[in-house]
């Protein structure tokens, strides 16, 4: 799981162009939206693409993202249970 969390941090930084952020700067349990990394609605859409492209997870309902994208740790848990690649 630790390896997936680290991988996810790196992929999120790359996908969302978080240029001045390193994986170590991201608290795996911190909220991704609002506070924390301060992501916005476009970033949420980009995370949906990231899930599908890298892990074969297609969210049927964009509202599911609210729960899945709470933090890197929650995302990693969801991915490990639902990934198809």
């Amino acid at each position, binding site marked *: 799981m630790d390896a997936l969390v680290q991988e996810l941090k790196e992929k999120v930084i790359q996908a969302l162009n978080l240029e*001045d952020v390193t994986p170590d700067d991201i608290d795996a349990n911190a909220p991704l939206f609002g506070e924390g990394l301060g992501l916005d609605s*476009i970033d949420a859409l980009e995370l949906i693409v990231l899930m*599908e492209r890298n892990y074969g997870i297609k969210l049927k309902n964009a509202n599911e993202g609210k729960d899945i994208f709470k933090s890197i740790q929650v995302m990693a848990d969801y991915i490990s249970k639902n990934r198809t690649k």
Partner: protein
Amino acid sequence: MTELYIQSAVRITSDQVWVNGEKANITREKESAWLTDIYRHLGIQYPKFFKMDNLCKAGFLASEFAMKGTNLEPSEEKRDWSVLLFNRSSSLDNDQNYQKTIADSSNYFPSPAVFVYTLSNIVTGEIAIRNKIMGESCSYIMEKFDEELLYENGLIGLSEGKGINNLLIGWVEYIDGKCDVLLFHVSREKNANTICSWNNIGIKKFFL
């Protein structure tokens, strides 16, 4: 009769920056993009910059140099300001980037973050959001740089009765790695910061 007074002039090309006719000394970093080097030079913290496409970055950076001369904070509401930009290629540079994300049907992942910049007027919006500019925000496409047309639009933008006293107006073009920006802060009133009046032949000296 409205007069246009140039308060600042910013020129950005693919390898140089001039502010009010003076060359800025931008440090080039290895493996860093030119526009990112300019951002670092400005010493600002605006993470959204890194999400912008190159056209937006170029316009945003020019506006940062122009606004530095005003002593106004970005967070101050500016009800008497407008943004009018012109270019030739619209957002084609980023349109091509977006097209790459949908070109391969076996690897079809349209990028929302790239898609949102597939309009040239996003540049004026980004500048307006950054600086809380509440007036008109428009971008126009023209065949080539036309000073007379810019001047006429400047006159209209600052004409009596509109409540607008300051304009960010200019040419913001970015295509295939080539950056070509000339942005002015123009005002209705002459003050201690005024460089010169813009009398329809007055800006050629800034085209360095």
